[in-house]
């Protein structure tokens, strides 16, 4: 037994670690590039519905989101269905057209992603869609999860 131990002790085994910072930096840069920091604080509760035949939106820069769902009140309670664009809840549905029109002027190829809670009623979405039509932002996308 002792023979073996001596032999093992002599042989030096070490993984060269000098390349580690390079590898770490590579990973770091990858994650820095892919990271999209969450830019909005959601004030409505959204449980996505799922669908099979969905397409990905490749150009994220073109996307603007509209969130529709029950308002989050304090203590985990949910209120009425509200519409949120960017950081604020919309009180007057009629103001959506101006907001979206301004966005369309900034980005003519705008895609509006509708993130709607699955328990919402369609009437609210109809109203929002009518506003989008008035604004001229006709490309929309119903955000869903992939059905497995």
């Amino acid at each position: 037994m002792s023979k073996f131990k001596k032999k093992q002790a002599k042989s030096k085994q070490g993984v060269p670690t000098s390349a580690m910072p390079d590898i770490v930096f590579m990973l770091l840069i990858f994650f820095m590039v892919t990271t999209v920091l969450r830019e909005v604080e959601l004030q409505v509760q959204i449980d996505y519905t799922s669908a099979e035949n969905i397409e990905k939106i490749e150009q994220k820069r073109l996307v603007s989101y509209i969130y529709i769902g029950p308002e989050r009140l304090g203590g985990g309670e949910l209120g009425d269905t509200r519409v949120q664009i960017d950081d604020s809840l919309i009180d007057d549905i009629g103001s959506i057209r101006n907001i979206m029109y301004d966005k369309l002027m900034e980005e003519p190829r705008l895609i509006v992603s509708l993130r709607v809670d699955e328990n919402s009623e369609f009437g609210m979405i109809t109203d929002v869609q009518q506003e989008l039509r008035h604004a001229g932002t006709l490309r929309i996308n119903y955000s869903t999860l992939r059905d497995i």
Partner: protein
Amino acid sequence: MFNKEGKKEVPEIEGSSLADIAFLLLIFFLVVTTIDVDAGIGMVLPPIPDDVEPPPVRERNLMNILVNAQGMVLINEEPSAIPEVRQRVREFVDNNGVDPNLSESPEDAIVSIKTDRRTPYSVYIDMLDEVMGAYNELRDQASQDRFGVPYSALEDDSVEQDEIRDAYPKQISIAEPDEG
């Protein structure tokens, strides 16, 4: 002048902590990263109609899908179930003038969707999913027949993809909502 004594010492920055710093940043970005792909059902809304009358559409080229508040589906005045929608749409679009009640050609076929204000959103999406599924199947089939590959394998914006897309355009119309 004073430097003459002794050798000039080149100040060196300690490089061994570089890895630690990089790790720290890496872990930060790992934690905050949300690789959520934006996916969903793409649609193009109809523009607000001008005063110009829309071109007349022949009755046979129009498939009316009605979804009511209880989530029940009516296709061309007949009650139907959501899983049946896909088959019905396929038959309707790919009719090519065979059945006098169905569309004349895929290019002419229009699927019109109308919902009630109290229709649940999930039912609407399920139904839209079925319609999209029908079109995707038709496109896949056409692509297999013509080029031997599924539609998704065709290159984006290629001639082949355009050809299939023109042969089976997704003409889905959202009906004007009722007043009140």
